[in-house]
């Protein structure tokens, strides 16, 4: 009996030992299969959906944002009451019951999309109704949706994203890496009902967020530019129009637009032509706006001075078998300034001949033509410049902007170099990048590419360009009351896209300029493609420039510097003595960059009465005297008066008609 008891005890002990041993083995020795099994049973993966970064304008207005949406799917296999469910879905989703029934019949499938990107209210109401009617078989997947609240505004620049929020065009594509971030997956323990157990603290509010972009663009200015371009296209029955506004000192893009445009929220419906950001992707023969850079080259290498006289041959010039003409007017002898003001093809060609093809090419290349500007936008074209040698007729053509192509951005940026005193900057559109998780902000700084001309030559060229908007100049329509405007018109024949040569009666009308001419803040370029009612740049593009410029200076709060009787509001309180006028002089003097030969070697104010503004400026350029101008017409008096001491090196000139 005793031995039996011992035997049983032994057997039991052995069995228990084996069990404990096995338990210890399972518990202590790692096993991949068992680990995976345990993980599956007790752990769940929580996916934290990433949010694509926002894009805002320079004042923080939203341009592109992402919001959480809910996409609805169905598992037909577990649907118990298909009729009831399809009726509910049809009424909630506003879909036909027939199409839902068709999907419900696909019993072999376990996952069918019913609707994408529903908002939370639809989701909540559908879930409540499902619970009430005790229906099953549908579920929601959380997704993110890109929204462009301003619809058409800046759409070609911002671009758009695909269904999975990948950037496909514009800034969305260029900055996709910065804007996008991957979803975060977190392993957490779950309870018996599959709910995650929060042990590791507050991980659910740590959803990853992409970087936010702040642009240099001003939404209001952008709107005005787009509106003006759209109206111009309609008014002149043009194919399209482009415009760009740059900060004259840094080449920041303040506005950039092409018309017609498209709604970025419905990008799939738009044609590729509307989606293209033509300001950077399209290069064309710019026409007379290129004459400015021939002048810049000629001034830099001392081939000409603003008052150098050129024989313009009475409006006709023969080069071999070809004849070059000046439009409308026939000029004989003109100064370089006048050539620019009246846009003489012959005068410019003759200056180019004096320079030679190598120097003209060098001048163009210096200003960034024939190379990408490096703007942070995709698809930039670099334009075409033919390689040397150039025959005489090609040199003449290139001098007035044919036989060469450039993008609107290249042109505006080159004018900015003249406006800021000779520095070519790399244009940019993203002002800063913010990491929302760390709060770190990376500011983008203006970048100088190179000096393209001396400050003195740039100042001379600015004065020459200011003459373009005088009554005798082609850019008269580009004037802005109260502000001196410098710029150049362009009317280029349009290249035939389906063959050789140019299209008959098709032109690209443009105007490039900056203001205020004495202290430039804005560079604006406008081009209208194939306007059918009028075609001269002076009649089509210059008025658009004027309206956009007017808004830009008003928005920037710039005080007018050209105070004339025409824009002065008459008031007894406002008319005063010469001394009082002196106290009311403009705050932005024209600062002459370095001493020159013409005027004021001593400390005495010369007699300027009776001179025109241009004559005064010519005499003052480079003397180091700060000149303030008041009025229009010819000089009536100065403060200090003629013959007085000029020790203060400040001179106020009053003009009257």
């Amino acid at each position, binding site marked *: 009996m005793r031995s039996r008891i011992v035997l049983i005890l032994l057997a039991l002990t052995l069995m228990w030992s084996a069990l404990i041993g096995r338990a210890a083995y399972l518990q202590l020795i790692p096993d991949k299969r068992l680990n995976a099994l345990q993980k599956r049973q007790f752990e769940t993966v929580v996916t934290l959906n990433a949010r694509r970064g926002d894009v805002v304008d320079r004042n923080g207005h939203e341009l592109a944002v992402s919001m959480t949406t809910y996409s609805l799917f169905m598992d037909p296999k577990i649907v118990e009451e298909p009729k009831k469910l399809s009726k509910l879905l049809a009424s909630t989703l506003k879909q036909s019951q027939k199409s839902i029934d068709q999907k419900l019949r696909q019993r072999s499938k376990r996952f069918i999309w019913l609707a994408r990107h529903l908002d939370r209210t639809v989701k909540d109401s559908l879930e409540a109704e499902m619970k009430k009617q005790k229906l099953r078989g549908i579920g929601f997947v959380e997704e993110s949706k890109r929204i462009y609240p*301003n619809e058409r505004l800046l759409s070609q620049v911002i671009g758009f994203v695909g269904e999975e929020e990948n950037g496909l065009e514009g800034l969305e594509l260029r900055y996709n890496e910065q804007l996008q971030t991957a979803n975060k997956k977190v392993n957490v323990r779950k309870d018996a009902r599959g709910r995650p157990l929060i042990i590791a603290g507050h991980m659910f509010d740590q959803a990853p967020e992409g970087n936010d972009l702040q642009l240099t663009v001003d939404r209001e200015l952008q709107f005005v530019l787009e509106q003006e371009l759209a109206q111009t296209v309609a008014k002149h029955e043009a194919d399209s129009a482009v415009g760009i506004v740059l900060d004259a000192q840094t080449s920041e893009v303040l506005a950039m637009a092409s018309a017609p445009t498209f709604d970025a929220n419905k990008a799939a419906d738009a044609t590729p032509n509307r989606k293209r950001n033509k300001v950077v992707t399209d290069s064309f023969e710019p026409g007379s706006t290129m004459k400015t850079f021939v002048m810049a080259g000629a001034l830099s290498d001392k081939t000409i001075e603003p008052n150098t006289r050129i024989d313009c041959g009475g409006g006709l010039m023969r080069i071999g078998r070809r004849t070059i003409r000046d439009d409308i007017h026939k000029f004989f002898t003109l100064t370089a300034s006048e050539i620019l003001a009246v846009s003489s093809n012959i005068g410019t060609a003759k200056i180019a001949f004096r320079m030679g093809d190598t120097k003209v090419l060098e001048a163009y290349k210096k200003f960034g033509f024939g190379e990408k500007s490096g703007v942070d936008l995709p698809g930039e074209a670099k334009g075409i410049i033919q390689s040397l040698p150039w025959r005489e007729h090609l040199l003449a053509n290139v001098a007035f902007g044919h036989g060469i192509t450039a993008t609107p951005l290249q042109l505006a940026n080159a004018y900015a170099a003249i406006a800021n005193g000779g520095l070519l900057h790399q244009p940019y559109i993203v002002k800063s990048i913010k990491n929302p998780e760390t709060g770190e902000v990376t500011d983008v700084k203006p970048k100088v590419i190179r000096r393209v001309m001396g400050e003195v030559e740039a100042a001379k060229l600015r004065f020459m360009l200011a003459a373009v908007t005088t009554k005798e100049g082609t850019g008269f329509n580009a004037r802005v009351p109260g502000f001196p405007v410098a710029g150049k018109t362009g009317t280029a024949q349009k290249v035939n896209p389906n063959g050789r040569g140019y299209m008959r009666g098709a032109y690209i009308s443009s105007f490039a300029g900056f203001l205020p001419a004495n202290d430039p803040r804005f560079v604006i370029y406008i081009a209208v493609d194939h306007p059918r009612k009028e075609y001269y740049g002076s009649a089509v593009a210059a008025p658009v420039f004027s309206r956009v410029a007017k808004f830009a200076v008003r928005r920037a709060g710039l005080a007018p510097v050209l105070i004339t009787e025409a824009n002065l509001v008459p008031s007894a309180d406002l008319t005063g003595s010469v001394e009082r006028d002196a106290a009311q002089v403009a705050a932005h003097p024209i600062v002459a960059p370095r001493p020159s030969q013409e005027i004021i070697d001593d400390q005495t104010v010369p007699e300027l009465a009776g001179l025109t503004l241009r004559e005064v400026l010519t005499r003052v350029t480079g003397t180091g005297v700060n000149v303030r101008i008041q009025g229009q017409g010819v000089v009536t008096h100065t403060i200090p008066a003629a013959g007085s001491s000029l020790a203060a090196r400040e001179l106020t000139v009053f003009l009257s008609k």
Partner: protein
Amino acid sequence: MSTFKSFFGAGERAQEIAPFLSLVLVLVTLFGVLFCKMELRRVGYSVLKLTREERKMRDLERQQSIMLAKITRPDRLQSVADARLNLKRAESGQIIQMTERGIALRE
């Protein structure tokens, strides 16, 4: 120990009660641990619920800000100004700008 003895009496009585007291202590500790674990889980569920609520609120706030951006977009403001308020754009000469020098200029 002296406190223990003074409280329960010295000698045999203290020895009699000691195992029971140990058991009580162990049980109280076990219950304490269990209570803490249950409390942790309960708080966890509350945090989960509040986190979801917070996310919902954030989404709602985002939705509202997008709505605000949509209704204040420049072209909509202009159409409202034109169509509903009968406002017109200022024309040349209608804007009078005051400069810092006290001059009134018509733009």
